[in-house]
């Protein structure tokens, strides 16, 4: 895994913890802690898997709209996968010297940002849960994802293939796992868990190995394929 992925996972984990604390500050601290692990069929850890833990009773909506950023650097979406809570306003700054034309035709949020550089567009509000795939109409190799969830408990697995979520109130939950390179037959992996006061573990083992990562085809960023 490249070092920036580690950073990204750490960042996501930190965001999750912060979100959790923010959502539950001032309330009685619940005891449940949930560890979600994701492994390949051969037992190796899967990092960067999206985990969203959805309560059976819908969670309280946040008081203020969250803000997040999907950067474009060296012809890549950074982070490659952004996980946000429903209602989050996402900025799409272009940090490259070339212009990008970001679009999505995914059902939860179809949109397009006309050809731009820098910070030309206001943020896009992701108001429906689901998976949004991002493309750039100038650079077909640029593909990114925004995973929008109603739940305040989400994150991405780290190097060890696990994500630990703390201070979940007791109750019933659905744990959903997703990864951009998932090759499973079913589009989504889900498990139901009931949390009491102790620690619980939700383990996922994929039926199929992840698809190989998208490659640049050996291209350097200054190239322009014919």
């Amino acid at each position, binding site marked *: 895994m490249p070092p920036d992925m580690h950073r990204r996972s750490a960042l996501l984990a930190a965001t999750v913890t912060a979100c959790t604390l923010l959502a539950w500050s001032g309330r009685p601290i619940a005891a449940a802690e949930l560890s979600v692990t994701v492994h390949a069929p051969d037992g190796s850890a899967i990092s960067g898997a999206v985990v969203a833990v959805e309560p059976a009773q819908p969670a309280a909506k946040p008081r203020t709209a969250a803000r997040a950023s999907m950067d474009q650097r060296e012809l890549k979406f950074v982070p490659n996968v952004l996980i946000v809570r429903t209602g989050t306003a996402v900025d799409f700054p*272009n940090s490259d010297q070339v212009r990008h034309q970001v679009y999505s*035709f995914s059902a939860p949020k179809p949109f397009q940002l006309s050809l*731009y550089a820098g910070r030309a567009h206001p943020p896009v509000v992701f108001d429906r849960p689901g998976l949004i795939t991002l493309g750039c109409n100038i650079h077909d190799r640029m593909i990114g994802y925004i995973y929008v969830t109603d739940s305040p408990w989400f994150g991405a697995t780290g190097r060890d293939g696990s994500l630990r979520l703390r201070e979940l109130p007791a109750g019933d939950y659905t744990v959903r796992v997703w990864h951009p390179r*998932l090759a499973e037959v079913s589009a989504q992996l889900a498990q139901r868990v009931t949390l009491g006061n102790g620690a619980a573990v939700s383990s996922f083992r994929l039926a199929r190995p992840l698809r190989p990562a*998208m490659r*640049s085809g*050996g291209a350097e960023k200054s*190239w*322009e394929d*014919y």
Partner: protein
Amino acid sequence: MGRLLSRLAGMAAALCLAHAAPAHDFDLSIDLRAVSVSGQPSYLHGGGGKLRFDDEHEGLQLGSLRAGYRGDLTDTLRLTAEAFAWGDGDVNALDLTELFLTWRPVPTSRWRSETKLGAFYPAISLEHRMRGWRTPYSLSASAVNTWIGEEIRTIGLEYNLDWLGQLGNSPFSVGVTAAAYGWNDPAGIILALRGWSLHDRQTTLFGRVGEWRRGIVDGRTLFYDDIDGRAGYYAGLNVNYSGALEIRALHYDNRGNPAAPAPAIDDNAWKTEFNSVGVRWTPDERWTLIWQRLQGRTEVGAQLPPNRWLFDTEFLLASFNYSRHRLTARYDDFRVNQAVSYFGSLNRDRGHAVTVAYGFRFNEHWSAMAESLLIDSMLRSRRWIGAPQQATERQLQVALRFEL
């Protein structure tokens, strides 16, 4: 006042930041060569040699001077222009190689369409990946792609329909392409007379190849000319798997009428058709492997059957990229067999070539590349100019390149 000025300055800076990348984008490339050659005089200078340079054109040479332009006319309409100077006394010192409009609406589903209008290259070469249709792997292109640069240009309309599976949950993206074009009736003449070659010189839109009425390729032909008024077509398919594998196939037919004369160049239209297939595989980010094959025929002449040549070529290229270094090796195999001739003597070209190139990137502006090219060939048409049919030609080049 000071506060107002600083606020204005801040607003101006924000405005500049928002438009840091211009809608009009010019760029420039300079390629200077030190060349050492042993072989026959080049076909460009009245000889039967297959190389771009020869004994009289070696030492310090201009590889190319290139100017490129990309202009976003609207959100989805882009104008591309490419101009080259080759420094070898062509009709125009600087001339266009490509000039086209691309209309690419933002997709609203996995299907995306793109329309191109103007003069451009059909998507055949898997080597040419740099602006200006240049190859990053070596100085001289493979035989097949050298020929595309010499004689094949779409001057017309191309439509592409892509299925962007990679934006869904699929590792595949698939595209089809179809084009109708004119101004390509002389295509095939160089292949029929001189056979295959390996170099980087693209025929410009208003340029000629060879010296006026000298040698095998005699500079009479204006390549992008329409003699018979019949449009040609091509249709192709491309598949991409996970960015790591690119497969292209194309059928090309210029639908030339071999009986249609063009008195200005004392020639008829050439009917050229071929099938082309290629695979580029990048097993990891360092290695690139390319294989391409092209097979076809060209015909000219009012009598039946017309003069006919069958041609085919293929190459295998392996390139290794590490940090600032790139090392490439390529093997080319090629042949032309004339099947019908009014004059009894059948031309023939049979040969192979080995290319080894090493490139080093100093920074984003400066790079250097050294290339050794060996072409071993038997070309019957060399008899016409009293040269030996068999030739083993060697060319060593070192290029210093500047990109702005």
